[in-house]
């Protein structure tokens, strides 16, 4: 069932306290981040409706925000999401080759998830790591100065965390 734990609900209340009285809509993006973390890595219509009712917002107020920001997934994703930057500065340092390598290694295209549900490959636009290119975001952290060997190690590491 789509329902935050009591600890998470307390966190939501804390976030709402950051804003003046009556401005709790400001908590929407932080709460959507929490919902995505807690409910399977994406925002299903059910999850969005739950957030809306929790925050006393109309469903459309939640949908229009969830679909605007690129970090919110409105489709299911794999357990580990590789978000590889492809913008100019990363391209200059070989991101095209890294993306091709990951595609071949995982046997999926951009936007696809492996059959075992472990990996999703996404391409993203500039993440502010241009000096440490090529790079990708994996969960909360950046993986930088990517090489095929590093990609292999990251894939292995992800498999280990599942096992």
């Amino acid at each position, binding site marked *: 069932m789509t329902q935050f734990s009591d600890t998470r609900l307390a966190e939501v209340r804390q976030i709402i306290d950051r804003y003046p009285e009556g401005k709790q809509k400001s908590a929407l993006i932080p709460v959507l981040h929490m919902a995505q973390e807690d409910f399977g890595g994406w925002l299903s219509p059910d999850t969005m409706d739950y957030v809306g009712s929790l925050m006393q917002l109309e469903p459309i*107020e939640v949908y229009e925000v969830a679909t605007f920001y690129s970090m919110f997934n409105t489709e299911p994703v794999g357990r580990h999401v590789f978000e590889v930057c492809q913008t*100019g500065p990363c391209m200059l340092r070989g991101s095209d080759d890294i993306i091709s390598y990951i595609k071949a290694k995982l046997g999926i295209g951009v936007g696809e998830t492996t059959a075992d549900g472990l990996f999703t490959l996404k391409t993203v636009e500039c993440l*502010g790591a241009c000096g440490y290119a090529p790079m990708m975001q994996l969960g909360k952290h950046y993986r930088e100065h990517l090489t095929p060997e590093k990609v292999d190690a990251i894939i292995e590491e992800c498999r280990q965390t599942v096992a």
Partner: protein
Amino acid sequence: MGRKLLLEKAHIPGIRSYEVYRREGGYASVEKALRMAPADVVEEVKKSGLRGRGGAGFPTGMKWSFLAKPEGVPRYLVCNADESEPGTFKDRYLMEFIPHLLIEGLIAASWALGSNRTYIYIRGEYAWIVDILEQAIAEANANGWLGKNILGTGFDCQIYVQRGAGAYICGEETALIESLEGKRGNPRIKPPFPAVKGLWDCPTVVNNVETLAAVVPILNIGGEEYAKIGVGRSTGTKLISACGNINKPGVFEIDMNISVEEFIFSDEYCGGIANGKRLKACIPGGSSVPILPANLLLKTAKGETRMMHYEGLSDGGFATGSMMGSGGFIVLDEDQCVVRHTLTLARFYRHESCGQCSPCREGTGWMEKILNKIEYGKGQLSDIDLLWDIQRRIEGNTICPLGDAAAWPVAAAIRHFRDEFEWHVKHPEESQRRNYGLAHYADALTTV
């Protein structure tokens, strides 16, 4: 070696912690500021000549003095940490390695502006930096620099970190405010400006991370001393994030009194072009500003050495110059294809357009499609003129500067590299096998 004001202490072990930061003289500017009248702090920042470090370069003191102060209405300071301009990663560095510098600057600025609730709006992808900042804020609270009645002055202030969720447009201040209010990041029509009607319709100042951090040295050494560093209207120091095909990508603090050539080739900074290649082109101030070929980058059209300051980088206007912008310095070596690079930027702006204004929403998509055709050998010569026409129709015709930001890189690429575009069109097969190369882009220019 240039003077360092922001990153001078960034390499001291443990500087991320409150104890070490304080031992190294941290928070002195807050002690100083809170003994001054808020208006005098604003005056000090005016004297410093500090210009907004986010990209626009607008004088910070003047921006602060525009803040409306109606009775009984709260005022807000918002720190723009939505760093998203391709090539720019300086704010990240500052927040990650010396977070208390930003918190210190924010407290002094909050006092100057009368903000009791101050927000740091940080791009959602910098998730781990949120933890670093929240830790620093907790330490500042525990040591009496935040909270109620700070230093016995009766001033209350709290700082909150708000995470975005992936949208370049939220670096535009009114889009940022919309996002902070829990909405889509659609920029607002100005006026009213945020200084009058900003966050929750209250008077608001939005400043970049580096700008707010610079308030600390300004208060410590005084606005007049700060203004002596640098050249002319380019006062103080500037963080430059350098990337692309150089030996030492990274974040450098410069005193804006060095040449572009020294910045690229000196070991103190970029360390020269990687792999022994030659310099072809550079975007000196973040992806939105005009790209320059090597010859116009190192020397101005008048044949003078180009300097790394606001006026130096913009010398010649858009015809032969560029801009300081955000300080995102992107270097291309002789093997790079300007068409392909421009295509990635066009794709970026298409992806990041909020969709509110049709010239930007439609135009960015068209530009990407046409560039895609040219890059993949399916273009016609007329496409280059079409591309030029589209970018001209975007520029100046949108609510916010994203339209201009999308138009300028395409315009400059055609302006300076037209023959490379034409070569792609005329050699559709060859251009799939090899790049155009350095060609004449580093040749000395005949000065008039």
